[in-house]
């Protein structure tokens, strides 16, 4: 389902940080094009 998709990750310092999501997505066929970790509040 994610194959060929370009992924932008908006992680959260108090939730799931960007790099953790990026690492998890390495197990899929998606391509991560942007990762950040925001403070959502």
């Amino acid at each position, binding site marked *: 389902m994610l194959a060929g998709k370009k992924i932008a990750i908006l992680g959260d310092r108090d939730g799931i940080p960007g790099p*953790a999501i990026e690492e998890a997505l390495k197990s899929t066929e998606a391509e991560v094009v*942007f990762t*950040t970790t925001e403070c*959502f509040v």
Partner: protein
Amino acid sequence: MDLENQQRIKDLADEHGQENMVVILGGAEAEASGLACETVTNGDPTFAGPLAGVQLGLACYHVFEPEIKDAIDEDVYEEQISMMEMVLEVDDIIEEVKEYREKFSQYTL
């Protein structure tokens, strides 16, 4: 949502095509996650950033949602994500993000 990140998302959508982009959120709570989803689909609701009035309609999911979770290797998900799943209000977060996606996303997985 951070103004610089709004610009990045806008630029990436221009570069790769809105239909090819998926935004994945890691927000800790429902309201903020919903706002981020609203921003990348219907535009910045605060009218402060580069996405003000820009309806990108991007596919947007929280990493907890089954569309994303099920695509990730189970062991890797366990290692990277599941600890936070135990402490956050997963159902509320999913419901909020889904509401905005269903309302404003022009693309889905």
